[in-house]
């Protein structure tokens, strides 16, 4: 392989810890008693539930439909009864609950009938909608709906397609194992991607610390009828970042604020390609994925886990040990601490990393920033982390944005090298979410302003319209009266007003008279008698009302 490789700036070499988990055989995880399937597993709108509590669902049945273009469906991972639809704790750093569909499994694992898709005969738009309804989303970590990424857009084709098998995070081996075992399936998925994107150059980037995966992928690629170049890239964290992978393989940089498709490159994780092949050739929705369970467990390994399986089931399977200090979802560099071990495996769960004080000693207390700029040397996005830290800490988010805060990929290299042990990435996440919250507030304020101004305008307009209508009516009436009593000489203004009032009174009385009682024909005699009694009472009251009260008369 003679491809000239490039390097990106920065990066770090943390201990790899891959050998712990990549040598054991892959099992399917046991079927849990209960599956908790979050409706928001992807970027974009959460799925909308389409099942009811108490309904029996089959494995692979659609339970949450995609809502809008940037969304993906969710499916039942096994057969059973839907017992609840509502908030449950989800794998998120906040520990907040979110809407989930909870299924009590019946152990039969009964599939719906599956139908493969003939992707070559289908309209690309239809195929993408089918993929969205099969719940396809990127399995590399960002969980962006794949159907959207498979749309080449206005350019109608995306010349370069990159398959990302770098798996640069320490400890994680699920992509490595997937490439060793299912290289053919992955490349079947690549063929579908190539069909949709019209790509001419296909590159698979794999870090050179995975020789078995490289061999397996090269062997499978040789069997294909189109050219796929499997490239061994040097092992350095974060070579698996999409922008870093692009730079290594092509030497091109994605400009700040742009997407890789703007320079004609699309990047997919190899797990996504595998899921795509399963979806198209077998009609299987995305209901399971490979998860690495590693760290402080007895048997670190990869398991094929159903989406919705609680994390503790997998940790028990791998052999939990006394003295764990926490569990990360993801790797040690970018992983999120889990609030609860009952949270389910979701589409984004590539690794469950059990921590212990020995393997992951707690960070020493932070020292003040000494502006050594080691973080700037390590930053693969070519940012100035020390400046970003300063601005984020001071709450000067505008300046942080000027320093391209949003190009930060939160890879954690800066925190890793910081001699003062400052949790730098936490500051960037904080600054980013503050900026997003402010933008949201600004949009809400703009909407309120617009609506308030329109209301003022509407009230003014209504007032004016009413005045005009009244003026026109009064004018017409006056003209009418002026025409009628012309013989009696010119009426004065006061007379005209009186006449108007008299006319209004006459109208009101006529209206009253019109409101005659209804349904009084052919009444039975007793009802008739009742009505007469009531009428008599009314007449009496009217009579009384006309007479001055006795108390008023006396003095």
């Amino acid at each position: 392989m003679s491809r000239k490789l490039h390097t990106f700036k920065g990066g770090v070499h943390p201990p790899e810890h891959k050998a712990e988990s990549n040598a054991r055989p892959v099992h399917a995880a046991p079927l849990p008693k209960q599956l908790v399937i979050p409706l928001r597993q992807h970027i974009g709108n959460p799925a909308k539930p389409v099942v009811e509590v108490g309904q029996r669902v089959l494995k692979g049945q659609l339970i949450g439909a995609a809502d809008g273009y940037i969304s993906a469906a969710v499916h039942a991972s096994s057969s059973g009864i839907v017992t609840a639809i509502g908030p449950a704790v989800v794998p998120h750093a906040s520990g907040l609950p979110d809407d989930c569909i909870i299924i009590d499994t019946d152990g039969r694992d009964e599939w719906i009938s599956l139908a493969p898709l003939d992707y070559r005969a289908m309209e690309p738009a239809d195929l993408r909608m089918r993929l969205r309804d099969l719940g396809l989303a990127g399995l590399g970590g960002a969980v962006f709906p794949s159907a959207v990424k498979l749309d080449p857009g206005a350019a109608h084709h995306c010349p370069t397609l990159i398959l990302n098998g770098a798996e640069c995070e320490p400890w994680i081996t699920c992509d490595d194992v997937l490439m060793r075992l299912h290289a053919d399936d992955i490349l079947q998925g690549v063929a579908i991607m190539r069909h949709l994107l019209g790509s001419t150059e296909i590159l698979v980037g794999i870090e050179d610390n995975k020789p078995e995966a490289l061999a397996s992928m090269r062997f499978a690629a040789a069997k294909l009828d189109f050219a796929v170049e499997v490239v061994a890239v040097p092992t350095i964290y974060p070579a698996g970042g999409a922008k870093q992978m692009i730079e290594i393989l092509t030497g091109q940089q994605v400009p700040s604020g742009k997407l890789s498709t703007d320079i004609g490159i699309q990047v997919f994780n190899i797990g996504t390609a595998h899921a795509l092949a399963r979806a198209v050739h077998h009609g299987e929705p995305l209901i399971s994925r490979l998860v690495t369970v590693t760290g402080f467990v007895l048997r670190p390994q990869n398991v094929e886990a159903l989406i919705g399986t609680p994390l503790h089931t997998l940790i028990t399977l791998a052999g939990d040990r006394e003295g764990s200090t926490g569990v990360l979802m993801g790797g040690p560099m970018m992983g999120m601490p889990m609030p609860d071990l009952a949270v389910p495996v979701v589409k984004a769960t590539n690794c469950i990393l059990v921590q212990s004080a020995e393997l992951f000693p707690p960070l020493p207390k932070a020292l003040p920033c000494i502006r050594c700029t080691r973080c700037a040397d390590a930053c693969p996005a070519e940012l100035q982390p020390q400046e970003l830290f300063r601005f984020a800490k001071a709450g000067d988010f505008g300046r942080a944005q000027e320093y391209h805060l949003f190009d930060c990929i939160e890879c954690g290299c800066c925190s890793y090298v910081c001699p003062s042990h400052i949790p730098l990435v936490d500051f960037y996440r904080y600054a980013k979410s503050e900026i997003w919250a402010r933008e949201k507030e600004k949009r809400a304020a703009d909407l309120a302003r617009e609506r308030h101004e329109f209301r003022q305008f509407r009230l003014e307009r209504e007032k004016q319209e009413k005045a005009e209508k009244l003026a026109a009516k009064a004018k017409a009436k006056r003209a009418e009266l002026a025409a009628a009593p012309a013989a009696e000489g010119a009426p004065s203004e006061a007379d005209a007003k009186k006449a108007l009032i008299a006319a209004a009174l006459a109208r009101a009385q006529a209206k009253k008279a019109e409101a005659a009682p209804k349904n009084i024909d052919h009444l039975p005699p007793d009802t008739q008698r009742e009505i007469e009694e009531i009428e008599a009472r009314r007449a009496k009251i009217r009579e009384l009302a006309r007479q001055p009260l006795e108390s008023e008369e006396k003095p």
Partner: protein
Amino acid sequence: MFTAILVMVGLAVIIGLVLGWSAIRFKVEGNPLAEKIDAILPQTQCGQCGFPGCRPYAEAIAKGEADINQCPPGGEEGVKKLAELLGVEPKPLDESHGTPKPKSVAFIDEQICIGCTLCIQACPVDAIVGAAKQMHTIVADECTGCELCLPPCPVDCITMVPIAEDLPHWKWKAPVIMLKKVS
């Protein structure tokens, strides 16, 4: 001497014409300062500042008729931003105009609502849907939480519900770093 006067008069006429023309050509509609102040105000339109809406308050500040600390929904942060814009010292919120509250939206108890339309007339952003003798309801996305619908309701069926923190609204907290004592 005469030439000098002529030159000066001529210059005055030319400059006057240019100035007059540019005054018409580059006329700024509205008060740009009031616009900038209005952009900072939270647009709750609650009237707690004593003016009928955010825009009139912004105009009053621009004219120097109102102080910058009369907006409780804007909070201390809003006062700080206004002070920065106007180049004055920030001051604490004037308590007589109210105190900041957590962001909330109005909620109509549909069992109690009699459909009198009084709240619809009070809502400054048209965020209440309903008609006479029909049940009313709040468009939560457009409610600014101004509480103006509370007093007119004859049956007190409107309550303010604080916006709970959920996943889409969750924010990363400012990291607290434990500094090591070095001495």
